[in-house]
């Protein structure tokens, strides 16, 4: 029988025709066209620039979310999209612009070299390059390392003026070999680390305009040296911990997923502690279409909307914005080429991998491949996303302890989740290693206070307790994880908090009225 179902044969995308810009004229001014944007509109150079800047302003402006003078943390990855974002922001802030942007940007780069086992010299190199780019803007800048996300206490307790940067890479390790310029980054370490005991990588650079960078740097550098040495070990540990965690996930797709989660966590923490109320991400529409489809593939369908919407309100005090979501990667590339915007090559987990190296990588190849033949692919996918609810309007929703999106695991049967659990129950005898371990590893040991306030013997979370606090996608990501103690501290803390709340609730249960 024909396997085609009704509706299958609607052809939603039209095959692309070879529609090069050669010989065409700009749709606005009849100049010679240089490129054709998505809907077959041919543009000349200057009209293209107007089109792009207008689209950018419109995206940022139409929601009226960014207020005048508001501090906005702009996340840079070194890639073309975020580089274009930085350039657009700089242009928008410049005096000659008639409709000026009025927010106050700060820049952040997260060094993820540890995740791909980059040698420290390369990480240093990348950080230097990024720092160079960031410094040249005159905006306050921050550098963090991915491993810092494992122990967010430091970010949380770290209170510093917002114009302080935090180079989290192994800059310090290279103390002997680095040049004057990089050394100056270290120079202000003491000011920033005075309140920090564990994390040596919190350091600052006075790159703000008000405080010209480099004053009294030598004196501070000397005083900070000993601290650098002592906290260096802690830093090494964090890096090892991250590598160990990623390795035990046993899947590149899961690693990518977790890195994305930690990255967002760091961004939101830095923003909160440094007084930014918004974070801008440089993801363009093409990237977001890949994200949306990847989300579908990794069980994060419920989060697909939050992950691709313009204003992501998942984090408590910080809003994530995606001002480039209306742009295609082609437009970004063209914009960068026309403006000599450089990007920094930064290797990722799948840089050298085949299409099948990870789910995200596969999805990217799939979407870009389809897009080549069917130019409406990306906009179709984004159209799907636009109609999905981010769940922001729902009250009292419980969030995932890891990625902060709403928990999608409280589902009633019949559901895919229940079906999987049933399958697992029925085709094994249920004596898996988890339950065995729980048995000989009782939780709740404490000095007697019983409220966990003593922290004397830190209890170990069971995998069940952790899983119960996670969304479907995060559960998948850590499925192969052997020891939940390897997870970021903020996750474990959240899990314990939930466990305590559950315990409290069970104690007072009989007095609670059903309000639903």
């Amino acid at each position, binding site marked *: *029988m*024909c*396997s*085609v*179902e*009704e*509706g*299958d*044969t*609607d*052809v*939603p*995308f039209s095959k692309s025709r070879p529609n090069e810009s050669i010989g065409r004229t700009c749709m606005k001014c009849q100049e010679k066209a240089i490129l054709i944007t998505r809907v077959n509109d041919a543009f000349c150079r200057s009209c293209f620039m107007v089109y792009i800047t207008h689209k950018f302003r419109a995206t940022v402006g139409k929601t009226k979310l960014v207020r005048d003078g508001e501090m906005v943390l702009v996340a840079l990855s070194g890639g073309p999209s975020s580089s274009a974002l930085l350039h657009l922001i700089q242009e928008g802030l410049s005096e000659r612009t008639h409709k000026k942007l009025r927010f106050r940007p700060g820049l952040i780069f997260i060094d993820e070299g540890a995740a791909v086992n980059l040698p420290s010299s390369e990480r240093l190199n990348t950080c230097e390059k990024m720092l160079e780019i960031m410094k040249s803007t005159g905006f306050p800048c921050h550098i963090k390392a991915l491993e810092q996300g494992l122990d967010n206490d430091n970010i949380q307790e770290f209170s510093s003026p917002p114009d302080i940067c935090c180079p989290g890479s192994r800059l310090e390790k290279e103390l002997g070999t680095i040049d004057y310029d990089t050394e100056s980054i270290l120079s202000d370490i003491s000011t920033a680390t005075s309140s920090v005991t564990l994390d040596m990588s919190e350091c600052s650079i006075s790159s703000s305009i008000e405080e010209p960078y480099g004053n009294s740097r030598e004196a501070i550098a000397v005083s900070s040296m000993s601290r650098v040495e002592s906290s260096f070990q802690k830093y090494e540990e964090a890096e090892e911990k991250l590598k160990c965690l990623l390795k035990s996930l046993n*899947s590149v*797709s899961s690693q990518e997923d977790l890195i994305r989660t930690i990255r967002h966590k760091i961004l939101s923490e830095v923003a909160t502690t440094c007084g930014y109320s918004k974070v801008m991400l440089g993801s363009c529409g093409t990237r977001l279409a890949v994200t949306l*489809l990847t989300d*579908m*593939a*990794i*069980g*994060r*369908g*419920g989060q*697909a909307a939050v992950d691709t919407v313009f204003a992501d309100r998942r984090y408590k005090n910080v809003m994530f914005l995606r001002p480039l979501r209306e742009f295609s990667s082609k437009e970004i590339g063209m914009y960068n080429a026309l403006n000599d915007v450089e990007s920094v090559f930064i290797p990722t987990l799948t840089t050298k991998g085949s*299409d*099948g190296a990870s*789910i995200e990588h*596969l*999805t990217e190849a*799939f979407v870009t491949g*389809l897009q080549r033949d069917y130019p409406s*692919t990306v*906009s*179709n*996918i*984004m*159209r*799907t996303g636009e*109609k*999905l*609810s981010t*769940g922001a*309007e729902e009250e009292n929703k419980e969030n995932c302890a890891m990625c902060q999106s709403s928990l*999608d695991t409280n*589902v009633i*049967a*019949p*559901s*895919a989740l*229940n*079906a*999987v659990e*049933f399958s*697992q129950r*029925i*085709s*094994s*005898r249920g004596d898996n290693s988890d339950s065995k371990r729980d048995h000989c590893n009782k939780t709740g040991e404490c000095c007697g206070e019983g409220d966990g306030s003593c922290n004397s013997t830190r209890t170990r979370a069971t995998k069940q307790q952790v899983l119960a606090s996670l969304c*479907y996608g995060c559960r*998948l990501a850590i499925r192969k994880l052997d020891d939940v103690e390897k997870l970021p501290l903020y996750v474990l803390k959240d899990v314990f908090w939930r466990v305590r709340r559950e315990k409290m609730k069970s104690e007072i249960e009989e007095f609670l009225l059903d309000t639903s």
Partner: protein
Amino acid sequence: MPLACGLCDKQAILKRPKTGDALCKECFFLAFEEEVHQTITDASLFIKGETVAIGASGGKDSTVLAYVMKILNERYDYNLNLVLLSIDEGITGYRDDSLESVKRNEIQYGLPLKIVSYEELYGWTMDAIVKQIGLKNNCTFCGVFRRQALDRGALMLKVDKIVTGHNADDVAETVIMNVLRGDIGRLRRCTAITTGTDGALPRCKPFKYTYEKEIVMYAYFRKLDYFSTECIYSPNAYRGFARAYIKDLEKIRPSAIIDIIHSGESLSVKKEVKMPVQGVCVRCGYISSNTVCKACIMLEGLNKGLPRLGIGKTHKERLKMAEQIGEKEDSSINSQNLKSCVSDHFRPKSNSTSFEKNQLDSFWVQISQSGQSCCKSNTVGCSCQRSVVCKDVTAGIQSSVEQQKINSSVIDF
């Protein structure tokens, strides 16, 4: 060293694609069947005493479904009246083998079989359709016609429900496909285990969470007899893209299919997004989000020698078609051998839009004012005043078309 079954310590002969557990044959059968039973009970798919038609194509999904339904019906005393329902599209050679296989199932499983042909239902065989339209778009026809054929056939058998062999792989594919084409209406509907609850006959998918690979495994070890069917008018529909993507995903993460279904199930649509309204076709009464259903448009095209009608690409074209049909409705109702009285389909349904209800109300008022009674029997020769009916039907269609021009979100072919 041979692996031991994870449940009974006998020698394992397979690794479950779904969970990775090593099981022996008997334990696999049990796990497979129990899971389907679990799905059936969790979703309360059936009520005791119901007559349920199993859409039987002779292919693996429906063959295994028929077998498992029969076993579970006996084991758990569902008390269902099971019948096999097959559609003969009228494709020379293609159906012969699969119908043979269904007929064997009839004997082996002791289930009654009813074969309904396209010719009976539409007056056209697929071969005749292909002769008129060529090979290019025939899958559009056979897909659209088949979906209705099962319902129409089931109505003839007077069953309460239809079960189909759609498996987890099919559902996941459909989810991805609808994401790719931005079709939020279908995206939301496609993960439902039962569809068509209001108005049309309910259709259920007991295999919604069952992997295709396990179905093959089950058939293989149970030595079930099925005919491996691929539509010979091979679909180059872009479902193929989604299928290939999922196959690649599975290589990276074997749970991808169920993960995608979970994704589909946990999507929620913005409140302000207007969903296409599922109404009924004014011509045939079949569930449709448009005034005239796709099958009717296609039939119209075939009968009028305009076979490309209904397979156009843009909404505009479709609207034009619907309008054309609307204009022709007057004559076509008279000329065509309708199986049931038009008024029967035009009765207000719970799922009609308020707009449609208003239309219907005024229609009924007109009839009662003019003192004419409309027959309610499903006879060919309706004794009611056709002209009255048809005029209103035509008006209804045309104003619906107007409505659709205004509200583009209700267009969903």
